[in-house]
């Protein structure tokens, strides 16, 4: 999932990665010895909200000890150790150092973090939440005396100073960012939703398109309709819009659908796959119900980025044809043989077990990449404490030709009122596994 950041990281003039390598051990942080359990819990929850684990915990390594590789065209960089180890981690960081790194992207030695660290979003974190997070990373996480492998970047791309300019241009002023997000809504639930989505949740890192400079076009709902309007293609998955577009956004998702999706990875309107799954697995499934509802309500205030998107309406003609065994439409025979057992002839699927294809925003996306990708590779839902069953979509690349997959994709995109454009064999051929 790290690779979802890569497309902007590869913008070589500006990008690299910070090794949090504390040079000084003298200013050891001073923290009260007795940490209240509630504060520790708040800090742990902040770490979940911010999905720190996604980047800073690699499989087979201790929690938060870094080591997640980012394979870039310019070399490989590794996420850092953020445990309280004084040599290898951030044990020497004072709370002020910590706050500056999280919210401003400046590490203890004054150098700039690579913006894979979403500090432009984290800038909004309140002092109280930063304090809790600091306490948690100093007293709730075990120090791990291990370093991630050294970054492998060659000069001049290894130079870090251009990042400072990037930061000057694009990182928000902390106070202003906090005020801006806080001022968006008077309703406390919506205000909480904005704080979570724009701040710790850093949803825009993937779901907001980036400009030429690879900065997110905007950080806030106020900043215009590009906010969360979909982030292009990452790891060969299309990052969808989270705004209210009727066909391609969340326009037909109810608040409870959004909550169920983030909490369990599955909703009657769709289930998680691809790069979103680890986000749910490490982070959103453990959000509190009230926070999830706040997020859902906030997202529902975001007006469509694409105006005049025609409303999706279920059209029964493909269903009726399939049910009277009329398989004359291209791809219909393949659909009946391979897909209908789970997704049904009416394309509506079965609740949270098999997602609907009729009206599913992923199917209706202009770019069919995600749909082709999942048909070729398949996917398995995560087993979560909130929903332990992991169901599978089989991959069909070994049993079906590119032409067959193009025909199935075309059928699905056309049937049940979907009426989206067709797909060519070449489109299928060009999508290869990101795994």
């Amino acid at each position, binding site marked *: 999932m790290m690779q979802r950041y890569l497309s902007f990281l590869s913008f070589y003039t500006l990008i690299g990665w910070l090794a949090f390598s504390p040079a000084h051990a003298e200013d050891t942080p001073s923290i009260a010895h007795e940490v209240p359990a509630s504060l520790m819990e708040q800090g742990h929850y902040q770490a979940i909200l911010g999905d720190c684990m996604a980047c800073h915990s690699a499989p087979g390594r201790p929690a938060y000890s870094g080591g997640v590789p980012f394979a870039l065209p310019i070399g490989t960089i590794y996420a850092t150790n953020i445990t309280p180890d004084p040599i290898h981690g951030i044990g020497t960081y004072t709370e002020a150092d910590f706050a500056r790194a999280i919210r401003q992207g400046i590490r203890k030695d004054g150098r700039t973090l690579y913006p894979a660290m979403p500090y432009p979003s984290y800038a909004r974190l309140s002092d109280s939440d930063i304090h809790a997070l600091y306490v948690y990373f100093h007293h709730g996480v075990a120090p791990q005396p291990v370093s991630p492998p050294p970054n492998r970047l060659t000069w001049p791309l290894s130079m870090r100073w251009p990042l400072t300019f990037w930061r000057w241009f694009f990182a928000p002023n902390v106070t202003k960012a906090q005020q801006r997000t806080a001022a968006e809504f008077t309703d406390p639930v919506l205000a909480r939703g904005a704080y979570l989505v724009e701040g710790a949740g850093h949803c825009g890192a993937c779901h907001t398109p980036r400009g030429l400079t690879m900065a997110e076009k905007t950080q806030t709902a106020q900043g215009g309709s590009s906010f969360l309007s979909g982030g292009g293609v990452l790891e060969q998955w299309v990052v969808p819009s989270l705004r209210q577009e009727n066909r391609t956004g969340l326009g037909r998702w109810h608040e409870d659908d959004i909550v169920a999706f983030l909490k369990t990875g599955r909703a009657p309107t769709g289930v998680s796959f691809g790069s979103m799954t680890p986000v749910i697995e490490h982070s959103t499934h453990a959000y509190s119900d009230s926070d999830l509802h706040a997020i859902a309500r906030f997202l529902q205030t975001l007006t469509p980025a694409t105006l005049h998107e025609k409303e999706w309406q279920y059209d029964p003609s493909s269903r009726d044809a399939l049910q009277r065994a009329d398989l004359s439409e291209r791809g219909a025979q393949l659909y009946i043989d391979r897909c209908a*057992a*789970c997704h049904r002839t009416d394309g509506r699927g*079965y609740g949270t077990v098999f997602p609907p294809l009729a009206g599913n925003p992923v199917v209706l996306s202009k770019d069919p990449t995600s749909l082709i990708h999942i048909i070729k590779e398949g996917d398995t839902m995560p087993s979560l404490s909130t929903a332990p069953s992991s169901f599978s*979509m*089989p991959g069909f690349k070994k049993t079906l030709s590119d032409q067959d997959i193009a025909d199935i994709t075309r059928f699905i995109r056309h049937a049940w009122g979907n009426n989206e454009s067709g797909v060519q064999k070449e489109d299928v051929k060009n999508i290869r596994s990101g795994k």
Partner: protein
Amino acid sequence: MAKELTEAGLSVTILERGEDRHTAETGAYPNSIDELRGSVRKRLFQKLSRNSLTIRNRIDQTALPYRQLAAFLPGEGVGGAGLHWSGCHFRVMPDDLRLRSATIERYGKKFIPDDMTLQDFDVTYDELEPFFDKAEKVFGTSGEAHMVQGKPTGNGNVFAPNRSSPFPLPPMEDTFSAAQFRAATQELGYHPYSMPAANASRPYTNPYGCQMGPCNFCGYCSGYDCFLYSKASPNINILPALRRDPGFTLVPQAQVLRITLDQSKKRATGAVYVDLNDHHEKTISADLVILGAFQLYNVHLMLLSGIGTPYDPHTNTGTIGRNFFYQTITTSRFWLPKNRYTNQFVGAGGAGVAIDDFNQPDFDRGPHGFIGGSPLWVNQAGVKPIAAASAGGGKGRPRWGAQYKSDMIETYKHSLSVDAHGSNMTYRDVYLDLDPTWTNAYDQPLLRMTFTWKDNDVRMNRYVVDQLKPIARAMGATRTELNMLDYNQPFDSRLYQTTHLGGGAIMGSNPRTSALNRYLQSWDVPNVFVIGANAFPHGLGYNPTGLLAALAYWSAHHIRTTYLKSPGPLVPS
């Protein structure tokens, strides 16, 4: 059971002789519904090359090994037979749990044949009701109630006992065949009902948070791992939650050789198993041992481990191997006119319409002279193409050529089958013991089965199957093939019948005639509990899984509430 014990805070390890199976992968469509790999090449069944059993009909014969799976199909791998079953999920008739007492009350002691070793379960329906209820909620069972909390509530089985709550899901739809059977039996004054099915009629989330998809009647239940996740199995309904528990460990490829006992032989200390990855013997220690190795192998392990005294039919002493039984299932077929399509490829393993008029306790057996009974049902479970081709046009029809083809097509499209799924009683000379000759791949004696059909059960089967004649007429059958057992016809292990094997280590009130007490605890080694249909003292007209699941939860409940607080015998012996 493992889920119950981890919930109680215990550290639980499961030793599984086969491979691990995550249905999300191995059960995925379309590979899971390959009939050649599935039913024909026995994908989910026991590998007889390492361990099997020997079979004979009579004590004076020499038993021979069961080398090819046929009559019954034990499972192997995570989920076991619970992964490849059909999904018929019954409770029990209350009097079936006290069949000996009820028979004597109504017909007198002489009604019981001399060689029949009939005895009561020593547990009542009312005691088990909460656990039937719990099992149905875990399994996501579809069905229609008749009586809930003493009030008639629906169009369910009028002979079914009272329930504390309705089925968690509405009944499965009738197939065309089942609807024909319903109409015909109704017309004849019988009492048809929708069979309770552990095939989900709707999407369902059980109390463990595990999800099921709804059944689409694809017909790949028995012998398959349901790709729609709609047939209840340990893999779908329990393990997704259980695997997340840090107190739980599953060791696949671990063939248990025996339970180890201390010197007193009164306490189990753990188990010895062969790790099939490296073929080394390994030992695991445990404070509490639960045998859940399937009926046959629970008995086998008790015999190999020296838990209890082996049964001796000559002296009628000992308990391990005693009261073994099977199921008297025969399948008859009706052909309907060619304008009525039964489409045998459609089906669901647990769905159908049944009548209990010849299974219910009030049905007077006096004039007919048999103990036991049999439901009749149309349980169209989906006939796969290879099976349809093998069956052709039925008994006595051509096996090749144009007539065979047209028969086969007619049979596939227009026929239906009706099962008489009857009880099988227990007899002094029907039992399990260790074979004196044959050994398994680990140099252990094979289990030996001594089994054949007895007149009581043949009489019952023949009587009940005979009742199909008016039903076939009422359904408008153009041709009827009634199949029933013949007197003196020995049990034939080469023909598939059912995997409903039972008894051999039974529960009861007397340690001299039962291996287990009413909580499924070994009388002899009280830190061993044995879960399986081996605990039933005799056969039932219903499929065993529902009662077996309820007994497992009943046993778990008493382990949790009583045994763990004070380990020892739960019933004084």
